[in-house]
C-alpha cells in the first residue's frame, strides 16, 4: 500500500491554552480539519466540503461572565495590593517586599487574562452538521474569528456542492419538511433482499 502524499493545510482558527489544550481548524483543498490536542497527542476530525449540510453559530455569555469574574478579582487584588503597599520608601522592608511583588505578579497575570478576553471579543459556540453527525468545532469559539473562518469556508463549500441556497429557498424547503408526509401502507413496501434497504412499489 503506497503512502498517500502530504496534504497542504492552511490555519483557519485556533483557541485554547498553549501547552495544555488547543483546538484548531485547518483548511485543505477538499475538507476542513478540526484538531484537538493536549500535551502528548492530537486527534483529527475531517469534514469534507461536499458533506457539510449546515454550520450553526450561536452566541454565548462566556465573554461577559469571564469579564465579570476577572474584573471583580482584579479590582479586589489591585485594591488589596494598594492597601498593603508601604506608603513611603522607608516603609519597604524584607517582610513586605516579597508579598507585594507576588501579589502584583498575580494581579498582572489576571489583568493579562482579562485583556486577552477583551481582545478576543464576544464568544460563541459553533456546530457543524453532516448527514451522520453534529459536531462542535471548539476552535471557532469567538464571533470575530468564526466570521473570518466562515468567510473562507463558505465559498469552498458552495463550490463543492455546486451552488448556493438563498434564504427563501431554505425556508421553502424547511416548510416542505415540516408538512406531514403521506402515510404508506405496509403492503406497498418490498423487502425481498435482506441486504437491501426497503423500497416502495410505485
Amino acid at each position: 500500500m503506497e503512502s498517500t502524499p502530504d496534504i497542504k493545510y492552511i490555519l483557519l482558527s485556533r483557541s485554547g491554552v498553549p501547552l495544555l489544550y488547543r483546538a484548531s481548524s485547518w483548511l485543505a483543498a477538499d475538507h476542513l480539519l478540526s484538531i484537538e490536542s493536549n500535551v502528548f497527542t492530537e486527534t483529527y476530525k475531517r469534514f469534507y466540503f461536499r458533506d457539510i449540510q449546515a454550520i450553526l453559530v450561536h452566541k454565548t455569555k462566556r465573554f461577559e461572565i469571564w469579564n465579570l469574574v476577572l474584573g471583580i478579582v482584579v479590582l479586589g487584588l489591585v485594591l488589596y495590593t494598594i492597601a498593603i503597599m508601604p506608603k513611603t520608601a522607608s516603609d519597604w522592608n524584607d517582610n513586605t517586599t516579597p508579598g507585594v511583588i507576588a501579589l502584583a505578579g498575580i494581579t498582572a497575570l489576571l489583568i493579562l487574562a482579562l485583556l486577552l478576553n477583551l481582545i478576543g471579543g464576544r464568544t460563541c459556540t459553533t456546530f457543524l452538521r453532516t448527514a451522520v453527525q453534529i459536531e462542535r468545532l471548539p476552535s471557532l469559539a469567538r464571533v470575530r474569528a468564526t466570521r473570518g473562518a466562515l468567510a473562507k469556508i463558505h465559498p469552498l463549500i458552495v463550490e463543492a456542492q455546486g451552488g448556493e441556497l438563498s434564504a427563501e429557498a431554505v425556508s421553502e424547503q424547511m416548510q416542505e419538511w415540516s408538512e406531514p408526509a403521506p402515510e404508506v401502507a405496509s403492503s406497498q413496501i418490498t423487502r425481498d433482499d435482506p441486504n437491501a434497504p426497503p423500497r416502495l412499489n410505485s
Partner: protein
Amino acid sequence: MEGVFNQPDFAPCPACGVPLLTEVFPALFRKTTAGQSAQAVMVEGESSCFYHAEKKAVLPCDACGRFLCALCDCLVHGSHYCPACLEAGKTKGKIKSLEIQRTHYDNIALSLVILPVAFLVTVIFSPFSVIGLGTAPAAIFVAIRYWNAPQSIVGRSRIRFVIAILIALLEIAGWIILFIYIFLAPHHGIHARY
C-alpha cells in the same frame, strides 16, 4: 422559521431567542441514495468475495488484490480497499486521510527534561529530585528514537526535539559536575563543612 437561515447577520432563534447564525448548504436537501447491496453468486465457479463466499466479487482490493463484493468495497480517494487493508492503512498511517490521532513525541521528550527540573526547583534537596538522573537520558532516547516519526499532520518542526536534547545534555553535565564535586573533591564539597 423564516429569517433564520442564511442571513448575513445573527438572528434570534424563534424558540429561545439566542442569537443564531445558520448557514445551510444544498447537501442538507440532497436525496439520500440507498447503499450498494452485494449480489449473491448465481453460477457455480463464479468469483466470490474473499470475506463473503456466497456473494459475487465485483472488484479486487487495490492493496492486497483480494476479491471483494460490493459490501466489502471501501472507496477512499478513488482507490478500492478491503476492510483489512483499510484498517492497516489507518493504524500504520499509510492513508493520511484516515489518521485520527498522532503522538507528540517531541513534547514527551521535552516534558522528560523540563518536569524534573521544575520538580527539583520546587522540592529542592528532596530525595525525589534524583528522578532527573534517569529522565535526561530517557529524553535523549525518545528524541533520537522518534526523530523520524510522523509529526503533526499539519506540519511541525523538530525544534522541540533539539531543545529537549540540549537541555538533557546540560542536565547530564550538571549531574556529572555535581557528583565530581561531592565525591571526588570532598575538600570542596559539603563534607568539608562538617
